[in-house]
């Protein structure tokens, strides 16, 4: 039945070729299409917005500074996709981006979206650069197309535990007992289990792990239990709104431990929290993604973001850096070809310096940047400072917390 009728795809291809023909003759090199995938509606929309902002800033910067030189100054054209805060949304958008002919996809934010979207991209040998998603499985499935510039969960948490020991020892070991407060989903429960297993090995006693649902309406009970247990250290792993509620409630009930040490916390490395609740945020520590404070580009980017009346969150520098990574690979590949870009991404080394993360020289192994790491931050004087590791730090830790 279809033997003599041209397929829809052939017709579309012909039409596309006819449209593209005059451009080939022109002087302007064809723009390189880059897929930016972020959840900008649904539960994760806040993170997605800030991720998109980072990608936009990078693309604007590349385009205003001569485009991709190896491609005759080709501009980068953003093909944006809304992952709608779920894996299905992410997959659907990758399919669309593929049909629009993107050379690579950057983003995803949440681990489930990154897992599904990179898998979908792998069917088309479409390079996929994860911006945030920390699940270790993202880079252990043997997908050739998937790269992660930032650190994975294992690396973040082992670093968090080691750094906690170091910070505690440097202060003369003031902390011994711990209460873990966590949200009861995959992220918080996984973190709590890890803490319960690993902290005793490092000389801490976990008095109790307290779970709470998301969304939580009230943290009074959690605060009450913490007051009854009176731990040296509180380790929370919750999402933004719940952590804000918890830290406010602790402050209100005058519960003052020797420190609050967060790992991958939604609020403690978030300037919104610092601006809106300066007292509750004061001296909270976090182990998280954070831009390298010593790089001049970081300050420049932060000013640009704050000039838009927006907050400086880690999503922005991570996405900025991930887009720069793709641009770097395009320069080295010399052509806007997916296989060549995958090849070039895998060979990225220390000469890639346009990123603003506090990492050592880039080196990919099975798609994971081995130099990626989270850093310890602390809210000090209404600013978020890096306190550890020392080579990236712009402040010294305030621990234990001084008495009022």
């Amino acid at each position, binding site marked *: 039945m279809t033997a003599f009728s041209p397929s829809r795809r052939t017709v579309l291809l012909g039409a596309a070729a006819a449209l593209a023909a005059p451009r080939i003759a022109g002087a302007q090199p064809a723009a390189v299409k880059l897929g930016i995938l972020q959840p900008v509606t649904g539960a994760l*929309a806040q993170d997605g917005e800030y991720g998109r902002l980072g990608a936009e800033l990078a693309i604007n910067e590349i385009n205003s500074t001569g485009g991709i030189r190896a491609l005759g100054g080709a501009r980068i054209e953003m093909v944006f996709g809304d992952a709608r805060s779920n894996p299905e949304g992410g997959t659907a958008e990758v399919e669309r981006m593929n049909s629009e002919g993107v050379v690579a996809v950057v983003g995803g934010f949440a681990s489930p979206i990154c897992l599904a979207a990179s898998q979908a991209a792998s069917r088309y040998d479409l390079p996929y650069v994860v911006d945030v998603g920390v699940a270790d499985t993202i880079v252990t499935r043997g997908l050739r197309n998937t790269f992660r510039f930032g650190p994975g969960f294992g690396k973040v948490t082992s670093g968090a535990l080691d750094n906690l020991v170091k910070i505690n020892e440097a202060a003369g070991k003031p902390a011994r007992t711990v209460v873990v407060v966590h949200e009861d989903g995959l992220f918080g429960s996984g973190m709590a289990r890890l803490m319960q297993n690993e902290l005793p090995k490092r000389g801490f006693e976990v008095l109790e792990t307290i779970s709470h649902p998301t*969304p939580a309406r*009230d943290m*009074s009970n*959690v605060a009450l239990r913490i007051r*009854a247990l009176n731990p040296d250290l509180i380790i929370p792993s919750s999402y933004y709104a719940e952590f804000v*509620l918890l830290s406010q409630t602790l402050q*209100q009930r005058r519960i003052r431990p020797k420190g609050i040490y967060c790992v991958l916390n939604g609020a403690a490395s978030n300037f919104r929290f610092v601006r809106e609740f300066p007292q509750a945020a004061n001296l909270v520590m976090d182990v998280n993604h954070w831009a390298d404070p010593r790089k001049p580009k970081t300050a420049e980017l932060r000013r640009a973001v704050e000039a838009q009346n927006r907050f400086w969150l880690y999503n922005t520098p991570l996405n900025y850096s991930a887009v720069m990574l793709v641009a770097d690979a395009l320069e080295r590949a010399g052509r806007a070809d997916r296989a060549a870009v995958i090849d070039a991404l895998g060979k990225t080394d220390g000469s890639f310096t346009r990123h603003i993360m506090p990492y050592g020289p880039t080196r990919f192994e099975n798609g994971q940047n081995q130099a990626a790491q989270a850093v310890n931050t602390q809210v000090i004087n209404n600013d978020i400072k890096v306190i550890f590791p020392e080579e990236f730090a712009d402040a010294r830790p305030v621990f234990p917390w001084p008495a009022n």
Partner: protein
Amino acid sequence: MRSYPPEIIGEAVLNGLLTGAIYGLVALGLTLVYGVLHIINFAHGALLTLAMYAAFVAWKVFGLDPYVAILPLVPLFFALGYGVQRLVIMPASKGEDSNILLVTLGLSIVIENVMLAIFRSDTLSVQVPYAMEVVELGPMLLGFPRVVGFGVAFLVAAVLFVILTMTDTGRAIRAVAKERTGAALVGIDVKHIYAVTFGIGTACLAVAACLLLPFFYVNPRVGNAFVLVAFTIVVLGGMGSVPGALLGGLFIGVMESLSGLYFGESLGQIGIFLIFILVLLFRPTGLFGAKA
């Protein structure tokens, strides 16, 4: 099970009562609309979200303290509720109760997404000087905004009770609730009463929103966190019963607080829904509900 000193248990009970009063206030609007219009208003959560955004805007743009904002927001949301029932829900339902369910559901989706479009999904909150104040009751510390919320919730319930029992409009509302056709026959404008009831329910939400904002946050989905509980309270207290909603709210609040203390916040939530199922099984009319 862990044992706690009495002052901690006492504080947990008081916290539960304070939170429960706000739950009751949210449930009040829901139960009233159910009792009179016999519809389950799925847009209740979205309307609460809308009211919280309104209170947020009043604070951010006009510098109004959330407690002061109650004064303009109550008539505003009464009018909104009246208009929504009169101009959207009633015409769209074409007299079929099952349509109303879908209309309110659709309304909630529209409201939530309009809020998302305007305010994005950022979690917003107000900063008021008294947010961190506490009321000291012996060894117990109670959050000042929660204590205010408790008092005002009771005040609203009392006012509502007076309106329903002592005014002509209140009598008309009760008449329509009991016997729609009969009420119409004696000359009550049923459509008007429906809209008034919906307006009162929405006005209750405006009060609840203003009481919540000083110690809570607002994002486009925040209403859902309260409405699921409110449904349980309505079933527990008896559909359509004003004192039932308030007492049900207090009961659920204490239940949630204590089970949270003993079984953890996550498991504590199960207690609420266990009650929901038990009430449906053994006393479907609720504690104060009239027989169907």
